[in-house]
């Protein structure tokens, strides 16, 4: 559909680039600002380009965030792995095994995906304080899983539904067990779906604030988001830490989306619309 037909498709590229630049300009400001002194950043005059590049903001942020980076990575990797471990066999069962109550499980998961985190935060906080899971990474991982598990089950069910069942049937006829069919046929073939879900189940806890804020009060265990949230102190905001820090936190997501945009788009539309 071309309204007025332009001779060169590059005209669209130019317009598209303009849209993109406008829509991403907030991030440009963060990037430029992360290299300015705080005085320049909030001077009365707007500066579109740092007068002098303060790379020290970035190195300071890196040094301060490094331990929290590790904490976040541990939490996100564990959450993602456990989520797949719990949901991948379940998604297989939801679609192809006659399990009583699978309709109930699916619709419950769908509903819990829609519930706000506060519904889980209050009771889990009370429960976890009684079993000393507060101020522990396992507690945080379990909390984060309350939003990754429903999401992953729904997405994976959509992927597995599209898998050609004849392959499984053939294996079963040849004498493979359901578990064997699942592990050696379904898993390898639905790899892209599994990876997509694994990455999203990584990014969700990576960006989580509410569970970290509630469950983790000891400074040794704070993930990235919490450390950054604390940069907003009583005496004002340390912008020369906050801006580079915020960009560092966004790094895994940006790398992922730029590297794998095609298949997230395909995967996400499939999962969301089914």
């Amino acid at each position: 559909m071309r309204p007025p037909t332009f001779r060169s498709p590059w005209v669209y590229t130019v317009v598209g680039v303009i849209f993109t630049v406008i829509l991403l300009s907030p991030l440009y400001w963060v990037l430029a600002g992360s290299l300015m002194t705080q005085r320049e950043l909030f001077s009365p005059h707007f500066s579109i380009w740092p007068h002098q590049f303060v790379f020290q903001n970035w190195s300071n942020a890196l040094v301060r965030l490094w331990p929290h980076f590790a904490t976040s990575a541990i939490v996100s990797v564990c959450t993602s792995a456990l989520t797949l471990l719990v949901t991948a066999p379940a998604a297989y069962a939801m679609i192809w095994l006659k399990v009583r109550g699978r309709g109930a499980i699916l619709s419950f998961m769908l509903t819990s995906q829609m519930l706000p985190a506060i519904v889980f935060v209050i009771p889990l906080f009370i429960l976890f304080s009684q079993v000393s899971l507060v101020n522990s990474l396992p507690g945080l991982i379990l909390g984060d899983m309350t939003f990754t598990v429903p999401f992953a089950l729904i997405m994976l069910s959509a992927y597995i539904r599209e898998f050609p069942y004849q392959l499984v049937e053939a294996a079963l006829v040849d004498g493979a067990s359901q578990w064997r069919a699942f592990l050696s046929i379904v898993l390898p073939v639905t790899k892209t779906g599994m990876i997509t879900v694994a990455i999203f189940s990584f990014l969700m806890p990576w960006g989580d604030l509410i569970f970290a804020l509630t469950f983790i009060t000891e400074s040794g265990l704070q993930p990235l988001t919490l450390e950054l949230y604390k940069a907003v102190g009583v005496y004002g905001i340390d912008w020369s830490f906050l801006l580079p820090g915020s960009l560092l936190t966004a790094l895994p997501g940006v790398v992922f989306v730029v590297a794998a945009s095609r298949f997230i788009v395909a995967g996400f539309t499939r999962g969301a619309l089914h």
Partner: protein
Amino acid sequence: MKQLEAIPERPATPLGAQHRVAPRRRAAWRTALTSYSFILPIAVFGVFLLVYPVLYSLALSFRDATVETIVGGDMPFIGFSNYEQSLADPTFWQALQNTVVFTFCSILFQFTIGFLLAIFFQNRFPLKNVLIALLLIPWIIPVLTAANTFKGLFNEVGPINQIAHLLGLPTVPWLASPGFALAATIVANIWIGFPFNFILLYSGVCNIPPEVYEAARIDGAGYWRRVGHITLPILKPVTVAVLMLGTIYTVKVFDLVFIMTGGGPANTSHLLSTYAYQIGFSIYNYGEAAAIAIVIIAVILTLNLFQLFLKRR
């Protein structure tokens, strides 16, 4: 062993065709056992970490649950007091109103921007996929990053006011003014959410066969007429899905407002979620916070039923 258990699971003939009753029953039992082994982990997880918290929230909402009563071990049953207390609090109504305004404005603009981008990207041109990937960034980055970005942009001496000053416009302490604070969070949320709308609508638009447009073009229909009479009607199912998912995700928003304004100034920018969190973890009245959480669940379930109703029609 494996061979024995596998074969009867998907018999080529109906089960009744076989007569060996006892082994069949054992096989059926075994099949069921295998099936349940697939869902055992998620069942355990679901019961303890999803079902239990929801039920416990419901129970808490009828109890006097504060730090002292929890440590004391008895949380007295107080009926609907928590609900009455929150309904009597003007901040609750403010938060409810804000949630409605926040959700409506966010969805309206996210959808409009997403739709316009989707029909623009319907054209084929070089670098298209790179631009699409870049446009997903606001949605893929942590909400915290986006929230800090807009906290900076709307800072009293931040770039928006710097530019306003440059243009001779009055400057506003956005995040410190009642009304403007909520508006600023809405702008931020539109920015976070437009890619989600864009990408789903774009995938819908890609599925429209080009011949449909050709026919309309031969009939002399202009561009916007074709958009209105062809693209929009064909996209209706996607639109309904996008709007409902968007609404549900927007009602859930917490981090953004919590980071940008913390509900301030003077509690004017609270959403139900941040208000509930404040009651729970600043005032430590878990019972009342749970009651507000139950109200949010009720709102979301109502929206959900509404969606089912729309789908039926």
